């Protein structure tokens, strides 16, 4: 009986095994980064040497500058393009999803139920289904190769609308909206002064998820952009195709392309974690 009591108190206390397992997971998560840094700081033979040193050699900056200055890769342009695309798309997604989510969660209008089901249904549609005609349309209007071709289809997502609707249904009291209306606010002012301040946490999370997703997106940019005006993933595919004989360069480039999001993660990882966990409870 005494043993059971003790067990109850300690039900949730982690032992050495738990910390050990988590440390192993952490090492496995970080290992590929470190390993590419090792290879990226070596020379073309390092990748072929399984007995390589576990301490980085000194060539990383040299390799990195070779990648940055390689004409075929267009590194700075790719970095700038990725920043432009991901920022634009995240801003518009947050703004337009908040507007639509507010309407679905808090306003009464004819057809809202059916239209919301339409939003959910579009989440299950794979990108592949629209890519062929989208490419045909883009090339007809001469947009292939331009960032517009990547930005426009991604201006707003069904997931964003769904996410904001869910959040506002649960966290935005209808009384607040009614009070603002009684005080004489028109619809858009009510939205601006009541809804927008209340949804900031959810909007910040949506921004982060959209940013990460857009930054990492490869399939459509790879189809519609060419190597003279790439985003980072497209530039990486060029890097692999042109420098595959020297993997110290390829992996130095991989690391360069990954660092911006790692920095973002250091500052916003906490929000990403709670966003994923909040989304799961609702989902």
């Amino acid at each position, binding site marked *: 009986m005494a043993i*059971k009591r003790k067990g*109850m108190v300690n*039900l949730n*206390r982690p032992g050495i095994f*738990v910390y050990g*397992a*988590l440390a192993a*997971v952490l090492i496995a*998560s*970080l290992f*590929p*980064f470190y*390993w590419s840094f090792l*290879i990226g700081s070596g020379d073309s033979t390092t990748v*072929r040497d*399984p007995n390589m040193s576990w301490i980085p050699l000194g060539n990383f900056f040299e390799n990195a500058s070779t990648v940055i200055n390689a004409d075929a890769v267009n590194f700075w342009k790719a970095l700038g393009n990725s920043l432009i695309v991901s920022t634009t798309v995240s801003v518009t997604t947050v703004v*337009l*999803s908040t*507007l*639509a989510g*507010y*309407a679905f969660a808090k306003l*009464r*209008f004819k057809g809202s139920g059916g239209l919301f089901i339409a*939003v959910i249904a*579009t989440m*299950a549609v*794979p990108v*592949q*289904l*629209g890519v*062929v005609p989208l*490419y*045909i*349309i883009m090339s007809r209007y001469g947009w292939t190769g331009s960032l517009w071709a990547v930005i*426009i289809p991604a*201006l707003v997502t*069904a997931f964003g*609308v769904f996410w904001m609707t869910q959040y506002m249904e649960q966290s935005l009291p209808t009384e607040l909206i009614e009070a603002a209306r009684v005080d004489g606010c028109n*619809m*858009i002012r009510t*939205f601006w002064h009541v809804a927008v301040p209340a949804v900031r946490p959810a909007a910040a999370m949506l921004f982060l998820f959209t940013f990460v997703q857009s930054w*990492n997106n*490869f399939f459509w940019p790879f*189809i519609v952009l060419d190597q003279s005006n790439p985003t980072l*993933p497209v530039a*990486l*595919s060029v890097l692999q195709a042109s420098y595959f004989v020297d993997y110290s360069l390829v*992996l130095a480039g*991989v690391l360069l392309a*990954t660092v911006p999001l790692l920095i973002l*993660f250091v500052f916003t*990882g*906490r929000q*990403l*974690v709670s966003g*994923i966990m*909040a989304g*799961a*409870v609702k989902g």
Partner: protein
Amino acid sequence: MATTEVEPRPAQYTWRDRLGRWDVKASPYLYIAPFFIVFGLTGLFPIIYTAVISFMDWDSIRNTGEFLGWDNFQYVLNDRQFWIALRNTFSIFLLSSVPQVIIATFIAAMLDHNLRARTFWRMGVLVPYVMMPVAVALIFSQLFGDTYGLINHWLGYIGIGPIAWHIDVIPSHIAIASMVNFRWIGYNALILLAAMQAIPRELYEAAAIDGAGKARRFFSVTLPQIRPTAIFVIITSTIGGLQIFDEPRMFDTTGTGGPDKQWLTITMYMYNTGWGQLNFGRAAAIAWLLFLIILAFGLLNFWLTRRLISSDTSGSK
């Protein structure tokens, strides 16, 4: 005096009233309009257009098509590559989703303790999620190098001969699946962790009083309680997993899915048909077949889910 003052007011009121009513009626539609316009132009219209093109012999230079009927579908369904791609896609999907859910559940159970530096551990498992699939693929394709790769080197220590990751079918699938797993295990672990934390602690205490040990509590309390969330994770990974492109595309430098199409997936097959051979009609047909496969799989999942949940009387919400 009183009449002159009162009379204009009703007029003013009706004007404002009308404006207000218009505001109330039209605003919701204005707010949702951007989403539906963007979706209509870049989603719905292309989907319908894909259906039209899939019945055409599309001339990609003049951007016009000639009606063919079911020829594209017939060609694709009779093409050996399509079936190889389908096999590979399912194989990679199974090799990534099954271990993914199991390992993620295990990690979630580890995280579901009174940990010190809780946020640190949670962020730690999420790091791989922010990494580009393309970057992960470039790193892992070297780790899984056939001759000099680190994985083969390590396997050598335990007496497993060098595995031909880039030649044999199943090993190439394992290598590609491990890239997917690397990126998504932590993400899914956090989803499952959220489900675990929603379990009332009294259930564990009651089980402990009844003499259930740690393992028993995990299998008899935790697992049944997180089942709906686990199924949600499986369904979302199905939709994503069947579309896989980035990792197999970057697995070698040619991007064609291997000399014998060992790791050609449906989306790669579609890309090669559309932008390699410039046959947009056939690519559109492949896109529709892929969509139908995902839909069928999703419905199967949904049906299984409902059966599982309704047969479960132990009260998983």
